[in-house]
């Protein structure tokens, strides 16, 4: 035991292999691979000394599809359906960022009502994603009710999205220029009543899941990420907000109509697994307030989509825009050479940057902490591989 502590004290570097060659055969290499109930479509190799992890090597790329390359062969509107596949639950946000970048490139002005509907879809999708993330967190800790309840409550929001967009999950709703269609009749009242139901359920989640002594034992004080390390590692989203850095792209660089909405950035100061699992719940509650304000301030009528030419193209140039998705700052950097198809699209996702913290946090932890730490980093494997 003491040798592990000595190694941990002597090495403050980030996730470097520091086991001496002579002691290598004491370790057992485990491949927490893609075929594992505890890792999603993601592989990482860990070396275990008894019950303690001494080395972790993430190995993404299992679900790499070449999203960025595929963008170069389709025009800017045709890119939307395949760009929302990296994270199907949060599809409004990943296409929101793309639409903003394209609008800046081509020079499109989005009508006001369209901006509001886009924001509503983005907030609803944020909740869909976070509830699913919470459900998987329950599975990783062995709590099957924590899987069933959020997944069931997700259906409420997915029904709303189906009424709004026509599809449940990958709806291709945000396009450059606005949204595809207007809200149906009675959507506003229905949305408000479902938001009330969800707010009631979040209180129940707090009582049953977060105040559960076993849940707290497993997550409190585990894998603390200090504020300096969080900034140095460059993590984003709920992970950095749980380490007392109140950074939210919607407040730092407001896009569309977010500068007219009044909301707080929720953050916690402890930086352990419990904070990282609690901040998304606070984000979801904040999201409910945002949706109420959006529905109030929305213009009663108007266009929802700017009229575009058949193959929209703009002058050669580049643009970079980012939004706050369920996992963190999601940015698009698009280079155009004057043709309808983009020359280069670079997607910068929060998951890939949060993955950097994984070797650093897993060092010296028990094997039983591995799922709790790994999933608390709000990592979505498909998005990180794009």
């Amino acid at each position, binding site marked *: 035991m003491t040798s592990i502590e000595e190694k941990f004290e002597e090495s403050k570097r980030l996730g470097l292999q520091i086991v001496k060659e002579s002691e290598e055969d004491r370790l057992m290499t485990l491949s927490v691979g893609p075929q594992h109930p*505890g890792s999603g479509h993601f592989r990482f190799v860990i070396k275990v000394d008894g019950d303690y992890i001494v080395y972790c090597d993430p190995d993404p790329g299992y679900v790499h599809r070449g999203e960025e390359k595929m963008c170069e062969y389709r025009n800017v509107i045709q890119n939307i359906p395949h760009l929302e596949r990296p994270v199907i639950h949060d599809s409004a946000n990943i296409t929101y960022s793309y639409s903003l970048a394209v609008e800046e490139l081509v020079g499109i002005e989005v009508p006001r009502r369209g901006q509001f509907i886009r924001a509503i879809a983005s907030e609803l999708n944020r909740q869909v994603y976070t509830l699913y993330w919470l459900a998987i967190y329950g599975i990783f800790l*062995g709590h099957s009710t924590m899987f069933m309840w959020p997944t069931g409550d997700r259906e409420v929001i997915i029904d709303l999205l189906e009424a709004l967009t026509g599809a449940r999950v990958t709806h291709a709703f945000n396009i450059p220029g606005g949204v595809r269609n207007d809200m149906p009749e009675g959507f506003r009242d229905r949305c408000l009543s479902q938001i009330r139901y969800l707010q009631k359920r979040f209180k129940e989640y707090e009582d049953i899941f977060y105040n559960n002594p076993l849940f707290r034992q497993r997550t409190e004080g585990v894998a603390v990420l200090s504020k300096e390390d969080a900034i140095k590692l460059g993590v984003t989203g709920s992970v950095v907000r749980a380490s007392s850095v109140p950074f939210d792209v919607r407040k730092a660089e407001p896009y569309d109509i977010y500068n007219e909405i009044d909301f707080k950035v929720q953050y916690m100061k402890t930086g352990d697994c419990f904070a990282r699992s609690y901040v998304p719940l606070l984000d979801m509650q904040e999201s409910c307030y945002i949706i109420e304000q959006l529905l109030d301030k929305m213009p009663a009528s108007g266009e929802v989509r700017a009229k575009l030419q058949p193959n929209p193209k703009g002058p050669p140039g580049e643009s970079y825009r980012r939004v706050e998705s369920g996992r963190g700052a999601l940015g698009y950097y698009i280079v155009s050479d004057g043709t309808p198809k983009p020359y280069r699209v670079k997607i910068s996702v929060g998951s890939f940057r949060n993955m950097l913290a994984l070797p650093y946090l897993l060092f010296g932890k028990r094997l039983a902490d591995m799922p709790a730490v790994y999933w608390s980093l709000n990592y979505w494997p498909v998005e990180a591989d794009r």
Partner: protein
Amino acid sequence: MASYPRDFRFGGFVVSLIWLIFWILIIVALVGLPLIFIILFYVPLPEVDGEVLTPYLFLTSILYPQSAIPVIETLLDTTFFKVAVFPGFTYAALIAAATIFIERKFLAKMQLRVGPLYAGKIEGILQLLADGLKLISKEIIIPSGSDKLIFWSAPIAFVATAAAVVALIPAAPGWVVADIDVGLLAVFAILGFFPLIALLFSWASNSKYPFIGGLRALHQLIAFEIPFILSALSVVILSGTLNLTEVVESQIQSYWFIFFLPISAFVFYISSLAELERIPFDLPEAEAEIVAGWLTETSGMIYGLLQLGSYIKTYALAALFVILFLGGWAGPQIFPAEIIPESAEAIIPVSELYEQTDANAAFWFTLKTFGVIMLMLLPRGISPRIRIDILLHTGWYKLIVLAFINMFVALALIYGGVLGPGGLLVR
């Protein structure tokens, strides 16, 4: 199941049926009948009204109901009936099957869903049958490099050990397979086999995840045996005997022990959850960390046997809880003295098969066992999984201290004359 091969020929089908009947007749005539005669030569046959029950007497007496009833009565008294039907294997297996089904439905209702619904007309009641058939028909994959002898025999040993614990449990006065004077000690001795089986099986699987799971199972099962035994020790102090039937008798004479020993009952309950590897103590098969723990390499009927053994163990430990703390089969008499009144001159004396005390005892025992089983299913919907260091800390420190506290309470009750022979609360 409705598909047949493309080149199906009816003639070939009939020929294969005839071959099947031929082989059945050959095997029955040349192998089965001699075996039956050899067995009957050695097995002592029971007596019916002074006559030895030969197969000839059996076949002639079952023709008429009035002569069949004494035969059935004799058969009910044999040890074979106790082993095979009640309170032995059939009873335990039926309760295990009902437990599995109730667990899935109960858990589903807690989680806002429905559970199995489609197998069988009423709410998926045939789901177990479907799962059993599926497991039988699956291919059993043996990992290469595994120790084949232990890999095949460990699941069977698991079910056999669980069945051995069932053999010691009395379900009604006089209805126990093995009436040992040190019954409680025998139960703990048999329970000590389970960590060994888990470790052997995980070692024989020749794979990393079962290895980790087996070590965790070893740690957990051994750590919780001590609070388990200590909490049952307080019951032994109060009742003065290790014989399980007499423990229940002493509870019938005074009051149920759970009123005097609530802390012991709680410790026993937590320890039995840990012994059964149920959530929140299912570290040996923690899905998210070690795939399926020491059950990773099981497939097909090997997995089915391990699940069967696990649920039979659940019944055994729940029944033990009922016997030690909840008064066994004690309960108000709700069965009538005779099921058919004024049947002294009946032609078919069916009512001689019915015994009021046994029926009442069996009913209350089953009801209480089901109640305790539901209590054991409850944490599955409520808690996440515990971590191994917290588990060992809880098992070694907190539970042993609690068990000792209640043991001192029990000693005080005995020395204070409240319980025990001639005590204040003894009726």
